[in-house]
């Protein structure tokens, strides 16, 4: 939740008024709107597939629901570049895409998972199996599994972030189950009979498991509906963005830089490879991590190039941040464009290897030099592009940006008193 380079720029005259910043911000907001609308459309398809699974559980309906989930990730991951620059997105994001999770909160897990930990008393709560339990001293009635129960009582229960009860990854776990293959190939292998409604039901409580899946999917849709609305003409995300042009441009660059460096290069990629831990995979149940990383990278590039290819193939584009930076310093712009492209090549190589059968969890294995090289090359490309993003901030004269909530920004007089 850090936004070191926060979307508050001093309104100084140093930023040259060259290209039309408002038009660049329009493009940025249009891409956000299209991205969240696409995410919503795909989530609605996921809901239809989940309903088909629950109405008629079978290998085919489970496979169709998994496919719908995988497709739904393509537009959503591209919106992650909006997260760190826009407080309204960052404050909301935890409900939708929180990770990593202690999945034992939700449903049954393998004995090797262990139980409650020092960090999380509820790591193995198993809501699907327990219609009543105590959370932080409060009796919870979970006889009906509803969106409200997930959102208001289970999500981040006991103020532990790993208690992820909602969003894409909770749904992913319910569709795939735990990946017990370690750093060997293979994703989670939940059987369709986990949703069977008669004696065929495996692992117990199939009806409650279905209720949970339904509730989580409904919640995902209402959350995405809300966010898509924030980017419409009168939506709060768009109006906040447009209210201060320099701050808006800084928000764009902050989102790009923070996702590139601290989040993707660091938390999601380097940490996993250095821990050799397959649970550090972003989409660990489905083994979709290579795509998760790839579309994050593409989303960052979309923001800079002012171009987004929608799920129906149509293109949203307009005046770009790249053009704005090029007017200020053509070298900085061309270096940043080259860096973004290089990152896509590196992420593309991970994706290519993964799709050819060298799965992301294998890449994380101890002593797997080829996997480590693939991942670290992408990490280095992301770090390099972060430096170019900082140079773009400077080129635009926007680097007198300070800390969120800092006195020096809110009240510049204060610090010299």
């Amino acid at each position: 939740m850090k936004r070191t380079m926060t979307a508050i720029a001093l309104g100084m005259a140093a930023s040259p008024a060259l290209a039309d910043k408002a038009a660049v911000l329009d493009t940025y907001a249009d891409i956000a709107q299209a991205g969240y609308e696409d995410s919503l459309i795909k989530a609605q398809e996921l809901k239809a597939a989940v309903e088909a699974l629950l109405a008629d559980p079978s290998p085919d309906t489970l496979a169709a629901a998994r496919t719908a989930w995988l497709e739904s990730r393509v537009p959503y991951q591209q919106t992650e570049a909006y997260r760190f620059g826009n407080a309204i997105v960052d404050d909301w994001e935890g409900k939708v895409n929180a990770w990593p999770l202690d999945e034992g909160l939700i449903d049954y897990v393998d004995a090797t998972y262990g139980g409650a930990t020092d960090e999380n008393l509820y790591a193995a709560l198993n809501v699907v199996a327990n219609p009543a339990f105590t959370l932080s001293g409060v009796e919870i009635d979970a006889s009906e599994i509803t969106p409200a129960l997930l959102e208001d009582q289970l999500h981040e229960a006991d103020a532990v972030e790993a208690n992820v009860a909602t969003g894409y990854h909770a749904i992913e776990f319910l569709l795939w189950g735990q990946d017990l293959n370690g750093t060997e190939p293979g994703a989670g292998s939940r059987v369709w009979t986990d949703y069977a409604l008669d004696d065929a039901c495996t692992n117990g409580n199939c009806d409650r498991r279905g209720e949970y899946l339904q509730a989580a999917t409904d919640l995902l849709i209402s959350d995405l509906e809300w966010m898509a609305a924030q980017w419409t003409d009168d939506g709060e995300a768009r109006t906040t963005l447009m209210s201060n042009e320099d701050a808006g441009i800084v928000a764009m660059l902050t989102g790009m830089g923070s996702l590139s460096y601290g989040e993707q290069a660091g938390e999601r990629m380097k940490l996993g490879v250095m821990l050799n831990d397959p649970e550090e995979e972003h989409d660990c149940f489905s083994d979709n991590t290579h795509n998760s990383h790839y579309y994050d990278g593409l989303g960052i590039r979309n923001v800079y190039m002012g171009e987004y290819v929608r799920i129906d193939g149509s293109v949203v584009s307009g005046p770009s941040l790249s053009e704005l930076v090029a007017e200020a310093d053509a070298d900085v712009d061309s270096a940043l464009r080259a860096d973004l492209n290089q990152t896509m090549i590196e992420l593309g190589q991970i994706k290519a290897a993964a799709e050819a059968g060298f799965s992301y969890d294998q890449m994380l294995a101890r002593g797997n030099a080829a996997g480590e090289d693939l991942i670290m090359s992408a990490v280095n490309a992301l770090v390099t592009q972060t430096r170019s993003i900082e140079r773009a901030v400077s080129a635009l004269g926007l680097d007198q940006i300070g800390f969120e909530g800092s006195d020096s920004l809110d009240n510049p007089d204060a610090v010299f008193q």
Partner: protein
Amino acid sequence: MRFFLVAVLSCLALPAVADVQAVLQDHVQPRIDRFAQETDELAEAASADCTATGLRPAYQDAFDAWMGVSHLSFGPLEDEGRMLAIAFWPDSRGMVARALSSLVADQDQIVRTPEGFAEVSVAARGLFALERLLYDDDFSGYGAQEYECTLVRAIARDLARMAAAVNRDWDDFAKTMLTAGQGGNTRFLTEREPRLALYTALMTGLEFTEDQRLGRPLGTFERPRPNRAEARRSGRSLRNVVLSLEALRDLARTLSATPIPRSEAAFDEALETARRIETPDLASVADPSTRIRVEALQQRIGDIRETVAAEIGAALGLSAGFNSMDGD
């Protein structure tokens, strides 16, 4: 009016800009040297006596030396993920205990060679893995003939190896910083960029101590988290806060060519506040009557950040760049 003053200052190249050479000579190099030396002594001590009680003094010295450099999070310490391998914290998923237990249960022979051990998960390497072996009752009772002894020696040797590599790499990296803006230097394109890297390290270090070293154990008033304090098993939580502030104050002083009275006062205030905390492991966060002192310290560090931003950042025309803790 004063708002205008900030704007003007930040647009001028002031004569009082930081001398990167001075920072490298007076701040970076002696501290990196010391870290290399202390980890070397730790490895020697481990080879002489690997038992928990025997090795604790050398461990404490090595950790002290680490606190002198842990804020230099760019360049050699960032390369190859060395920061994580030297000091894997926070460990919000309990990976250290898990990784160590798994090595011990398997009697994993990978600990026999430095090359092999360098491949091991960072959760089972570095200062925090060693802390668990030396101070946690679940591990610390091993004898000199047991597997844990070999593991302790491997961790100590691995730390010394990484510190030596960091020390060596800083020679080259220092040259890269000093040739900023010259042809062929693709890392630092302008003279301003190395200063920005140092300034970002300063601000990031303050933020880390405020949000992580103090914020994690503080939790909330209703739900304090004393078990999340950094290095609580070795009783170093408060000491780490103090040593990090002292290191950051030294960086602030060398980074600014002119006196920084406001920042000095802010650091003094925070260090004075730290002296009033009586629990080395910050357990007092869980006691409503003493918790307030830890909260106060956290606020004082927030004050340092604002003062440094205004007094040093504005004067140098710098604001912090992206840091590795951006993200969630």
